[in-house]
């Protein structure tokens, strides 16, 4: 997965928000809220095209969690994000 470059992510208050910019902002007016882990994964998907497995590995490198939890977290997040026009 790779995130459409027409999105920006910023910390607002205690969480992160992602909103559309440029052309995409004309059709998508919503705001996606993410926690620290969500923002970490988002940034990985914005950098380059990654698989869920690569995201799990990245998560395991950064946070002290087991593979099973990481796999579940990544899958949940990716599925939740499919509701928005963010993947290329």
């Amino acid at each position: 997965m790779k995130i459409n470059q027409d999105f920006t992510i910023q910390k607002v208050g205690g969480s992160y928000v992602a909103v559309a910019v440029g052309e995409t902002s004309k059709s998508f007016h919503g705001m996606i809220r993410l926690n620290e882990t969500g923002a970490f994964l988002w940034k990985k998907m914005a950098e380059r095209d990654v698989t869920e497995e690569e995201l799990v590995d990245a998560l395991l490198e950064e946070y002290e969690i087991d593979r099973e939890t990481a796999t579940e977290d990544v899958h949940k997040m990716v599925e939740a994000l499919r509701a928005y026009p963010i993947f290329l």
Partner: protein
Amino acid sequence: MFVISLAGIRVGIDNRYPYIEQQCRAFRCDGEAEFTVSVSGDEILEEQKFGAFSEGYCESICIYRHICEQMPAYGVFLMHASVLEVKGYAYAFSAPSGTGKSTHTALWLKNIDGARVLNGDKPLLRVEEDGSVTAFGTPWNGKENWGENISAPLRAVCFLERAKENRIRRADESEAIVRLAQQLYLRGNRACVNLQLALMDRFVRTVPFYVLGCNITDGAARLSYETMSAQI
């Protein structure tokens, strides 16, 4: 072409139609503009597709949109809200269109001594160095045409909801962000959106947010004013 002062920024307006000159007359100023905006004929045509409005009116809407895309660079952003001023402080009410912002604004004018409308629809907010926020009147002030060329420190923001009984509560930061995002103009290029999000971050950290469930009785205005003005 003329210059107006908006939230302390001199803005040049290069217009085609006279409508906007009349609209902005209370905001005219001298001096050189920090930036100048103009609108193409195509944009005006595009805007007219949303309703049978005059070219001059549509030009004005497009011009304000362009101004609002420049403003975040100056620490200023647009919030869709009705802002009242009482005893030197500003209070903002925000809600999806049709909820009753105008009705609640009218209740304040009737019930709160010295209340006047700073802007009934599209005020500008400026985040100051110390994180506090100042509300500014603008020539774009909604269908009731409520507003003046004044400014005041913003004391609180209140999101309105319809309810049978009047009640008010504080909104935590997380709820404030979700509700606020719906009332900002988060469009345009990346730099503009990023600047606005940075301003929003400071805004939610310094200004208290409330949620008012209200009916259309006088008590609704008294409850919201007394609660929001009582804080230190």
